[in-house]
């Protein structure tokens, strides 16, 4: 157990129809706790009116994305130690680019419905999972392994993306990454969805999505790869027609 810290938690508050404002909560924390623990304690002991989303508390569900000191974080795995200091403040705001339900809780319906529309897979064969250090040789039995995809659908990338801030039509990093994982070869119908001004070409290489992604998806790399796939497809079609 480490030395306790006294911090000020600045929480963005907003009930329906209100303008957001900050409420401050002074609290004692263990620096090795997570930001979500601090938020949860505000609700449990200090202010029962606080609304926020959370479920798994270990980075598999993607519910607890928030902006912590202006940077998108999955709060359940963000150590307080890494984002503030003793006697410091911790500013917690809802993700950007999603309608706020209340306080820190946002409605991610737009992300989920787009992921659904492009048919992003929530589970996929382990052999396709792009594991960083894959076993040198997949066991034949591995071919049948199904695993949950890396993308937690947490929306951090969409909150961080500068292009997504002004255009609600932009599909956004998570959706494009899902399309890339599906592959254009296997899903040719995706070509007309991603090869548009609201698709891959709306990305301006800010790489903010990859910088904030808590789960190894690396959306920027996937968007770049999707571009290559599209260019290949388009040139291929050109020659096929000719």
């Amino acid at each position, binding site marked *: 157990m480490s030395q306790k810290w006294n911090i000020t938690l600045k929480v963005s508050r907003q009930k329906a129809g209100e303008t957001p404002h900050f409420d401050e909560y002074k609290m004692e924390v263990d620096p090795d706790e997570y930001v979500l623990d601090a938020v949860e304690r505000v609700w449990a002991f200090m202010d029962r009116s606080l609304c926020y989303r959370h479920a798994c508390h270990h980075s598999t569900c993607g519910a607890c994305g928030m902006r912590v000191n202006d940077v998108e974080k999955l709060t359940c795995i963000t150590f307080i130690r890494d984002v503030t200091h003793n006697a410091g403040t911790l500013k917690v705001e809802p993700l950007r680019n999603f309608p706020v339900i209340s306080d820190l809780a946002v409605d991610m319906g737009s992300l989920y419905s787009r992921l659904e529309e492009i048919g992003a897979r929530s589970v996929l064969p382990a052999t396709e999972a792009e594991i960083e250090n894959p076993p040198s040789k997949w066991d034949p039995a591995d071919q049948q392994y199904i695993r949950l995809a890396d993308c937690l659908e947490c929306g951090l990338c969409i909150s961080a993306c500068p292009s997504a801030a002004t255009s609600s039509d932009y599909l956004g990093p998570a959706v494009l990454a899902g399309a890339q994982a599906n592959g254009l070869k296997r899903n040719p119908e995706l070509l007309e969805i991603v*090869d548009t001004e609201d698709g891959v070409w709306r990305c301006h290489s800010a790489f903010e999505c990859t910088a904030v992604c808590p789960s190894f998806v690396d959306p920027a790399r996937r968007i770049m790869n999707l571009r290559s796939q599209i260019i290949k497809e388009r040139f291929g079609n050109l020659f096929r027609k000719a």
Partner: protein
Amino acid sequence: MTETTTSKSISAPKSGENTWLWLIKILTGPLLLIILAIHLLVNHFLGETGLLTYADIIAYYRNPIIPAMEIVFLATVVTHSLSGLRGIILDLKPGRDVLKIIDWILVLLGISAVVYGTWLALTIASSGA
């Protein structure tokens, strides 16, 4: 207060900033970088002080490659910058009709800039002849 956002179906392409338009933008980039380097070096490092006076420029334009290069430079820079501008405008989510008008304006702007520049380059080149 848990109305779900109405599922907004993925919008159909407006007018396609698609592969081709985008390839034009990205491929003119490196081309520009090369011509811009020449342009800057010539303007600032040629001779003692670079090209500063009217006479310098006229003399420089006497070589027919130069006006040709400047015209290519202009056409490339106009293409790159206007397609870039269109990209920025698209970030602002213009409506389909507005975008159509913007497209026409951009095309007209681009053509007139290139025509004007070509006329200018040829005028300068011929005034030295």
